[in-house]
Each structure stands twice: as C-alpha cells, then as structure tokens.
C-alpha cells in the first residue's frame, strides 16, 4: 500500500519535473528541475531495493553532472534576458506526440505480457557487496574499459577546453 502511494508520488514528480525542464527558457531553471527529477528517480531506485544505485545517482548525476552543467551555463553567462524567445515547432511536436501515442497503443495491444509478480529477493539485494561481487567477477573487463573511457574523456575535455595561447 505504501509502496503504491510512494511509487505514484515519485513517478508523478519525475514526469512533472522533466516536463517543466523541457518547457523553460531559462537554462539554469531547466537544470534545477532536472536535479529534482534525478532526486525523485533516486527515490524510485530505493523503492526498487537498489540503494547503491540510488546513492550513485545522487552523487554522480545530481551532484557532479548537473553541477558541471550549471557551471558551464554560468561561465558562458547565459542570462535570461540574453536568450531569445525560441519558437516551438508545435506542429512537429504534435506529430511526434501522436506517433508515439499510437505506437504505445499498438505495443499495449499486441504485446500482452502476462503480469507476473516480482520475484522474491534476498535482504542483501542491491547492496554494495552484492554489486561488487558481480562487478568484479563477471564484468571486470567492462569495468577496466570504463576507467580508460573516463580517463580519455577527462583528457579530451581538458584539451577541448584549453584556450589557444597566442
């Protein structure tokens, strides 16, 4: 019962925040709405018994990636009065919305998966130790490759951001 209520609360907050993020002219307002959306997503992860991923979501997405976004917006000094009013392509948006709604209706009708309940999980499901066990045994090669990827991204970002010295 509480799970149902909490799910609906957090999912509606997420959808509302993402909608608000899309239709804002001020980029920092968009960024803050996205931060709140990430928060409610982290709450949904906790509901799905994934506390490690929830904390990672707040630490990485809300705490680092969005800080980077807001930093760049502040550095480029995009104030609200300097932004032009964008024209929304309402026709385009309406077409896409209709296409997606139709696709959803089709999927719902023709792919009727029987609703099975969630399987029972142990108490240590989603905890750090369990994630670590799988990460370092089955997925150790992607783990090492991800570290190289992040190193390459850091080098790339620094190189791109450097100002040319005269």
């Amino acid at each position, binding site marked *: 019962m509480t*799970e*149902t209520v909490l*799910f609906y609360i957090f*999912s509606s907050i997420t*959808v509302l925040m*993402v909608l608000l*993020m*899309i239709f804002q002219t001020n*980029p920092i307002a*968009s960024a803050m709405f*996205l931060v709140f959306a990430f928060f409610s*997503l982290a709450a*949904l*992860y906790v509901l*799905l018994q*994934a506390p*490690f*991923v929830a904390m*990672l*979501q707040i630490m*990485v*997405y809300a705490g*680092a*990636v969005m800080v*980077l*976004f807001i930093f*760049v917006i502040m*550095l*480029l000094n*995009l104030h609200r009065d300097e932004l032009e009013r*964008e024209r929304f392509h309402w026709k*385009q948006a309406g077409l*896409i919305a209709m296409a*997606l709604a139709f696709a959803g209706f089709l999927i719902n009708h023709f792919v009727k*998966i029987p*609703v*099975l*309940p*969630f*399987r*029972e*999980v142990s108490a240590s*499901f*989603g905890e750090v130790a369990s*994630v670590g*066990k*799988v*990460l370092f045994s*089955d*997925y150790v090669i*992607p*783990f090492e490759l991800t570290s190289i*990827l*992040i190193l*390459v*991204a850091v080098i*790339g*970002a*620094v190189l*791109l951001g450097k100002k040319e010295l005269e």
Partner: protein
Amino acid sequence: MITIHHYLGLSALLFTLGLLGLVIRKNLIIMLMCIEVLMNAVNLSFIAIARYLNLMDGHVVSFFVMAVAAAEAAVGLAILVVLFRNRQTLQSSDYHLLRG
C-alpha cells in the same frame, strides 16, 4: 499493486519526454540535458528488470551507463564551450554553414 509494467511504462514515458525535448528545443544545453533524461529512463528500466528477475546484472549495467553518461556529458559540454567561443550562439538553428 505495482507491477513491472508500471515501471516499464514510466521508463517509456520518460524516454518519450526526453526524445520530445530533444526534438523540440534548439538550445544546445537543453538538448544535452534531454539526452541525460534519455539515459536515466534506460537506467530505470534496467533497475526495474533487475528487481523483477532477481539478478544483480541490471545494477552493474546501470553503473556503467552512469559512468558513460557522465563522460559523455563532460565531453559534450567541452565541445559546447568551444562552439560558443567560436560562434557566440547556442541555438542549433544558427549552425547552418553546411546547408549550401
């Protein structure tokens, strides 16, 4: 009673909204943020299915998706900064030099 369909439906809805935002908006930063929304929708789907099937692999893949998304956001923002320095504008409709 919350079933897997609720979570998958929410993930699909978030993906759709992110896609909508990506197509509608012309401001490059907002477009990058919509890409983050796309990746988060996929993350939610992974975690929900991991819970449904009692497998930890979903959490691990979600961890990788987060790492890749962070790296991509960093490089994307660096490219954006260079673009802004050269063109002084961030509207995607202003980058039309190759349009012939």
